[in-house]
């Protein structure tokens, strides 16, 4: 196990995990995922977990191939050439059995996912556009971002009352 010395103990305590979850109704494509980063923190996005059903309440298999396109508005980057299918960078779980009218999904465990390691500066938007809508029934897409808030220590807000 890694040894935590006194010197890096404080630096460990500065950052904190912050998981961002949203359930996106996908009645018409495209659908959007937005989350604005708080002032004072950068956000290190580590992994993306996604779930969506491939079978509706009547048992009809429709097999949507949802695709996602991410934007980094702060730096005006679109870090992919075309929208990427979800299953090529994470494993959409719960996509084989049923979804109830309430939007609940089969409780399969989260599977493997590709590391992202993208840093969003504070006040930037995490923005994902989802396409590839099925034509049979609306679905709901569960998206969870696993990441960490990293305080930008040079900002005055972290200096407290010392300079007051």
């Amino acid at each position: 196990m890694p040894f935590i010395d006194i010197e890096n103990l404080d630096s460990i305590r500065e950052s904190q995990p912050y998981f961002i979850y949203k359930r996106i109704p996908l009645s018409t494509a495209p659908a959007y995922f937005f989350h604005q980063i708080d002032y004072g923190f950068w956000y290190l996005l580590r992994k993306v977990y996604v779930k969506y059903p491939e079978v509706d309440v009547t048992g009809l298999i429709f097999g949507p191939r949802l695709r996602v396109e991410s934007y980094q508005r702060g730096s005006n980057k679109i870090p992919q050439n075309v929208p990427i299918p979800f299953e090529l960078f994470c494993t959409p779980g719960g996509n084989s059995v049923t979804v109830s009218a309430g939007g609940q999904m089969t409780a399969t465990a989260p599977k493997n996912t590709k590391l992202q390691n993208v840093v969003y500066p504070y006040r930037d938007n995490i923005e994902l556009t989802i396409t590839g809508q099925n034509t049979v029934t609306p679905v709901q897409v569960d998206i969870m971002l696993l990441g960490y808030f990293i305080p930008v220590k040079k900002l005055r807000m972290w200096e407290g009352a010392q300079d007051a």
Partner: protein
Amino acid sequence: MVVKPFSQRIDPNKVFDIQNSQYSERLLLADTVPANSTKLGKVTVANLGHFFCQFITGSFSTLDLVAAVITDTGLSYLSGQLMDGSGQRKLFNEPIPLDLLLSPGRRKDPTSAAVVADPASNGLFFPLEFEYMFTANSDILFNVVNTSSNPNSYEIVLHGIRVVSSMVVGNRIQPAGGQLTRTTVQPQRRG
């Protein structure tokens, strides 16, 4: 990280010294959430020292009432929001369905009416990464929502490292039999 304990020569004194100041530990947080309710689960980090959490694993039941019969539907009814009790710092933006968070996830529940026929519990796939330092004497809170008409239970384990207080304040550890010399960690004044 792949640990190869025998890939190098082991100095028992050094290993014991390290183990006296920090060691691998697990904290279990388990609770049952009543039907259509919210309940705050809690586990306390003892004053022995800080707890550096690295991974989370967990399982939960997926029961509901179907025609007044307790049925394992396999759907995720529980959502949870993890909080650091010191300062009420929220670590999720809102309650997240446990099936997005926890591996192995669904487990077979003996209170189900068809427990024999129910599918077997999920197997552990991998622990979820979650690196955070919970301070000594703080509470780890897990606010869980149950949307089912039947109570559901969950158990999560936080895997991490206990950093004992004596190490945090820079004191030396004096086990029975004599004082060990600390060479790895030296208390330093932070400017």
